[in-house]
Each structure stands twice: as C-alpha cells, then as structure tokens.
C-alpha cells in the first residue's frame, strides 16, 4: 500500500466529494420537479401530485420510469448529431458550473481563483443547448424559440457579467471563497450591492429560461418552442437541466449576496441549504404569479433598464472602492 501516499488520498477524497456534490445537485434538480408541482398546487388551490409515496414524494420515481420507457424518438428530418448533443449540453453546462460554488468551508468541488469567470463561461455555453435544439429539430416553432433564446441570452449576459463586477470590485477577487469570507468580515453584499443583486437575479432567471423569461419555450405562443420535437430521456435532460439551472443560480445568489454558508447557531451546510431553498421557492413563486411580457418588451427591458442600472451600480461601486482605498495602496 505504499502508493497510498497522503496526496493520493487527497485526490481520491476530492474526487469522491465532487461526485457526491454533483450527484446531490442532479437529484435535487430532479426532485424539484415534484417540489415545484406541489408548491404550485398549494398556491393554485389544488392538490398537485400526492399519490406516489408520502405526500407524493416518490413521484420522481414514477416520472423516471415513464421517461425511461418512452420511445426515444428522433424525428427523421432532424440533424441527428446536433439533435443528440443539445440535451447533453443543456444538462452538463450548468452542472459543471456548480463546481465553483463553495458549499461549506470544507466542501466544494473546485476552488478556482477565476470562479466567477468560469460560471460566466459555462452560462454562455448553455445557450448552445437551446440553439442546437432549435436548429437541429428542423421545426419552425423550435426555430423561433431558439431565435428568441439567442437574442435574449446575448442581451442578458451583457449585464449579468457587469452586475457582479461590483461584488468583485469590493472583494478584489473572482474566487468564490474569498467573496464569502469578505462578506463574513464585512456585511452581506445584498446591502452595498442591492442593484447588483436585483439585476443578477433577473439575469439569472433569464439564463435559466424560467418564467417570465421563458420566451424560447412560451407554451402559449410557441407550444414549447425549442424542445417541441424532443421526447423521452432527451426531453428529460432538458427538464432536469432547467432545474439544475435554478439550483445553481440560487446557490450563486446565496454565495455572492447572502453570505454563503455563514449564519448563527446552525451548521454551515444547513444555512447554505436553507438560503438556497428560499431562492428556489422564489423562482417557483415567480412562475406562479406573473404573466409573460412580450418578447420585444423583454429585450427593451434588458437594454433600457437593466444595462444602465448595472453600469451606474458599477461606477458608484468603483468610486466608493477607490475613495476608501488608502493612497498607499494605489500605486
């Protein structure tokens, strides 16, 4: 057992941790389908799935069985390769981005010093899922959906990046752990970066294509848009991918603006989970409560309201940071 040096053990441990975390995220994402339906049921004066297991909690199992046994149909007119690739990207891009999220002081997949940039890169890749799906399906509704998706993503990613630059400026680091620690020493960034929080939340909803930014799907208009030709497990991957997106954006909101795992009394992991669950619920509540603006109104909102707001926020933050910095530090 001489090869079992401490460094090898560390590697094995890190791999196990990574697998555990990623599996947990996937399962959380899948379970969310049940949570969402139950919550919607509660708010909409109806039951939701309550038959399988206690409170319908095993509904996920039933859904999985259904999806696995459905015919995995690929339309003959589709571009096969791209058609298969799209759901894989949809599920994996945001899942991989979860690697940079620090869950507790000791748990987390990767401690990248470009953490935030990595998330932006992955969020940028995620739009290819929708693009590929819409293009390869060879369906006009899907095409319109992906057209909307690309336009929407372009406009919302512009200020999503900018909305977090205030946080980065205050902390002086892209590393997520540094950002959490900075909040522990000072205050939660929700207060100094309130406008950053607002715009990032909006951009986050848009990136996950959740209501009211579900323009690419827009059931009432495009009849499910980009994934209209998908069935079985391929559709399931889009479905789970969307929930993983919600978990990721909620976790990021907690990490960047709500002090990550920090909190009194309870252990760090519980704090992290509770805060994340709160934002997940917020996502679902949004879906239950508001109508969908028209596509061009969404775009106008992005360029005319959100972008100027983030720019002003960044300017003010920069000014404050410079003002507070002692002249000695400024070289």
């Amino acid at each position, binding site marked *: 057992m001489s090869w079992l040096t401490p460094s090898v053990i560390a590697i094995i441990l890190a791999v196990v941790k990574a697998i555990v975390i990623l599996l947990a995220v996937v399962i959380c994402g899948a379970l969310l389908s049940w949570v969402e339906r139950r919550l919607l049921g509660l708010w*909409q004066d109806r039951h939701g799935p309550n038959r399988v297991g206690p409170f319908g909690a095993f509904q996920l199992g039933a859904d999985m069985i259904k999806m696995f046994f459905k015919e995995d149909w690929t339309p003959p007119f589709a571009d096969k390769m791209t058609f298969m690739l799209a759901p894989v990207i949809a599920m994996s891009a945001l899942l991989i981005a979860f690697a940079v999220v620090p869950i507790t002081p000791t748990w987390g997949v990767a401690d990248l010093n470009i953490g935030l940039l990595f998330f932006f890169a992955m969020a940028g890749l995620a739009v290819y899922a929708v693009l590929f799906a819409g293009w390869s399906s060879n369906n006009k509704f899907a095409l319109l959906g992906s057209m909307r998706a690309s336009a929407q993503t372009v406009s919302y990613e512009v200020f999503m990046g900018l909305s977090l630059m205030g946080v980065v400026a205050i902390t002086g680091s892209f590393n997520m752990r540094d950002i959490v620690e900075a909040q522990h020493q000072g205050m939660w960034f929700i207060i100094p970066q309130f406008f950053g929080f607002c715009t990032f939340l909006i951009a986050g909803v848009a990136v996950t294509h959740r209501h009211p930014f579900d323009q690419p799907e827009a059931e009432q*208009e495009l009849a499910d848009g980009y994934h209209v030709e998908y069935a079985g497990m391929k559709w399931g991957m889009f479905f789970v991918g969307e929930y993983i997106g919600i978990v990721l954006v909620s976790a990021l909101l907690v990490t960047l603006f709500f002090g990550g795992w920090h909190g009194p009394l309870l252990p760090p992991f519980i704090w992290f989970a509770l805060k994340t669950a709160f934002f997940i619920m917020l996502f679902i509540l949004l879906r239950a*409560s*508001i109508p969908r*603006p*028209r596509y061009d109104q969404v775009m106008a909102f992005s360029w005319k309201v959100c972008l100027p707001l983030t720019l002003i926020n960044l300017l003010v933050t920069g000014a404050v940071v410079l003002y507070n910095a002692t002249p000695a530090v400024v070289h």
Partner: protein
Amino acid sequence: MTADTALSAPLHAAQDEGVVGELKARFSADMLIVQTTRTGMPVVWVPREKLKEVLTYLRNLPHPYVMLYDLHGMDERLRTQRRGLPPADFTVFYQLMSIERNSDVMIKVALSINDLTLPTVTDIWPNANWYEREVWDMFGIRFDGHPLLKRMLMPDNWQGHPLRKDYPARATEFDPYALNAAKQDLEQETLRFKPEEWGMKQQSDTSDFMFLNLGPNHPSAHGAFRIILQLDGEEIVDCVPEIGYHHRAAEKTGERQSWHSYIPYTDRVDYLGGVMNNLPYVLAVEKLAGITVPARVEVIRIMMCEYFRIMSHLLFLGTYIQDVGAMTPVFFAFTDRQRAYKVVEAITGFRMHPAWFRIGGVAHDLPRGWDKLVKEFIDWLPKRLDEYEKSAIRNSILKGRTVGVAQYNTEEALRWGVTGPNLRATGLSYDMRKARPYSGYQNFEFEVPIAHNGDAYDRCLVRIEEMRQSLRIIDQCLKNMPEGPFKADHPLTTPPPKERTLQHIETLITHFLQVSWGPVMPANESMQIIEATKGLNSYYLTSDGSTMSYRTRIRTPSFPHLQQIPSVIRGSMVADLIAYLGSIDFVMADVDR
C-alpha cells in the same frame, strides 16, 4: 358612429315597414315581393339582376344598414307550403342590420337550379366573404367576383354540397368509410397550405417569409382552429384562418330531428353557453307555434341564461390571463365556475349541456332550496371578481401585453359583423337585451358596460363588468321569482300536456303522436336573436308544416369574429396574436356549428 347616437337608438320596431316603403319608392313596386313571416322584420324578395343595386341602396340609405348580420341559403325544391312566393329551386337570403334604426331587413333572391350564380357583395360588406364561401360549400351556389371561392367548412376535396335536400343526412346512407394509404396521402395533400393560391408572396425585396402553421392543435388556438401565418421574423405580414375542423352539421341535423328532440343539439353549438343556446331556438319555435309562456318561465330562463353567461365569462377570464402567460388565475376561475355549476346542477340535473328549456317552458320546476344556493353564489362571486381585477387585470405586464393590442374601432367592427362584448369594447352600447328585449329582459334593471379603445384589454374589462351586471339580474330573479306554472298551457308544447289523456281516446292518440312524432308546427318562418355569451346568436327557422324543421339556420357570433382576424392583426407579432385570440372569446363549436 359614436356611442351617443347608439344610446339614442329608437325602440325596436318589430315590423319596421318603413324600409319597404323606401324600397318601393326607389325601385318599381312590382319587382319587389314582400313575404309575411314571423321573423320580426320585413322580408323582401328581389330579382337577381337588381340584388346588388338594392343592397347597395340599403347600405347607403340615411340610417344605413351597416352590418351584414347573416347571409345564407335554402334548398326550396322540396318545400310545399310556399304560396305567394316567387318560384325558386334555391334561395339566398341577406339579413341586414341597422344600429341607428335598431331593426333588420331580409332580402331574398330566388335562383333556378340551372343557373346558380349571384354577384358577390364582398365589396359592400367584407364579411360576406366567408358567408358566401359557406353558401358555395353547402349549396353549390357560385358568387361571381368573389376573391377566392373555396370550401369553408368541408375539406377541399369533398364531393357534393351537404345542405342540399338530395344530399343524405345519415352516415348509414353512405358506403362504409375506409381510409387507405393513398387516400390518406391525398387528404394530407389537400390540407397543405399553398401561399400562391391566396396571393401571398414567398419573399419581399428584403427578406424571405416563413409560413407558420398554427393549429389545429395548438395550446392557444382554443379548439380545433388553424391559422396560417406569413411571418417576417416574428412579425405577422398576413394570415389565413382556416375553420371547419369542428363542423358537426348542426344545421343539417335540424332537418331530421323533431322540433323537440333538436333542443340538445343546440346546447352544443356554443358549448360554454349551456341553456343559453336553447333560448333563441325555443323562442323561435314558440313564435311559430304562437305560444306565450308564463311569467315564471321567463324569469327562470333569464336566471339560468345569466348563470351561463357568468360561467362562460369566467372561463374567458381564466384562459385570457393564461394566454398572456400567467398560469394561476385559470385555476381560481375554474373553482368559481364549479360553484356556479353546483347551482346549475341542482336546478337542471346537468352541467355543461342541460338541454333544459322546452318548447313552451322549462323541463321542471325549480327544486326546493334553490334560492339558498343562488344566494350563496351571488354573495361569493363579487369579492372574487374584485380580487381578479386587483391581482391580475391591473398587473402592468398584462397591461403591457394587451393595451393597444389588436385594436379596432366601431366602424370596423360593424363592417366585419362583430357583435357582443367585442363590439361594446369599441364604445358602442348595443346589447340585444336592452335594444330589443326578449323573454322579459325589459323588466330588469341592469347596465350595458362599454369601453372605448376596442383593444384586447378593453374586451376583458367589458366582460368582467358584464359578470357584475349578470349577478344583478340574477339577484332580481331571486327576489322577484313569480309563482305559477313552469310550462305554458298550449297543445304544441313539448312534452305535450297529459292531464286529459286517460279520458278520451282521441286525446290519447294525439298525445301519443305528439310524443312519438313530435308536434307539427304551422308552416311559416321565424327568427329570434339573443345576446348570447359571445355576441348575437340567432336561429332562423323555416317550417313546412311538418314535425321537423325544413331549414334551421344558426347564426353564431364567433364565425364573423374569426373572419375579422387578418384585418386586425397584420403588422403585429406572434405574441400579440395569442393575446388577441384570447380576447376574442370564441369556441370552435360556435364557429363551425
């Protein structure tokens, strides 16, 4: 035309013979044949050569006939009781409506089987387009100069013209249906949309157009409705609505059901209207038979009709908000409808299609305790309506989606035959319950809500306010329900009176015949318009002195509403179309019949 002129509209003159005088003064009197009917309007036969001239004259009179209310035909070949009428194999009739006169006139043209052609009137009233196509489809009558005379309700490759009397009405009279691969391909090819046929271009100078087939299966098409969009990006350049997928031959069925057994079919025409569909039909039959119903019957009928108006509007409200993307209110609206259904179920014993009105009355008396149920409901709903308004209707996103969207003015609405809340949203206060009260509506106090912009948002506001007014009417029914019988004492009512059957054999035989064959209605024509849930609905019945109707024409409001779509939506976006479709409030059964 402004709201003010309409408010001062004269009382409805049932047989407004003034227009006949005007016609006789303008055209030679021996050319015009005036037919006496019980339709409540002058019916004038004109020769084919003069038709266009007469119609143009009526359109341009002082106090003009602005709306082509209905246009259809009749196969006269088997009609026996037509004394005094010009010889005809087929007839086409034009029912024109004047808002300023508050009266109608019907112009009829006789046609011979050897020459079934007429000039088109699409240049006078644009909504003649679909009606003429339907007449071509059903009778094989051609309209010269029509932009595109295609079949309307039947598939393009259909053989024969179904409403002709020599066309069988029962499936058993045809060979058994079979579908093989070749036939399936042929049917599918028939459904393919060919833009060139409609004079649409594939590209403009700057861009290629996309033709998007929306429906007949689409979550927001509100039934089996197909609309083909010519898109430049997401902007709608032009569109072609396609109907007929829900056609069940309700008019043909009328010709082989007894007067009584046809009532359940009427329920299914506007399937959200329930017993409100029975009303124009039984009122028209009662006019034929000369039955006057007791006061209690009138009030019960009004109460049930207003219940169904509320239920239809609640469904509209829920789906309308859902169409603009908010998923929750539809569930609440359905919960409220359920409460209304509780009352309807207790009174009629059925939910959606009670078929509860009878010729001369209603099926049975109100059950014990009905007043408590009704009271519960009218106490419940107002709070909920306020809540909808506060939480959903005043929402700024919803307003952003609907204010100024799919807007049209009163003049356009009348030109396209738009009626009901969709007309009142443009600022014209024209409600049949007030304008030409029927079934005792003149005894009730209520207001006619109107709005002024005629956009998708106003159409919703008008309906919400209408629900409040309906509650007011129901409340008055509750407080003033007259005592008395629930059915008229008349030999032609259905089911026929039975009290004396076991005393004379003659009465017993007559009763037996009236139950098995149904009553014989005197030969005549009658018509009744009502303010249905979606607009003006009417039944125009022709009796040939038989146990069955000779011709049943059902004019439904949704048919012209859908025809208007292209003129309103050109230049808007796909999302606007969805909001517009939601705001029209149509059901396909009401379009296709």
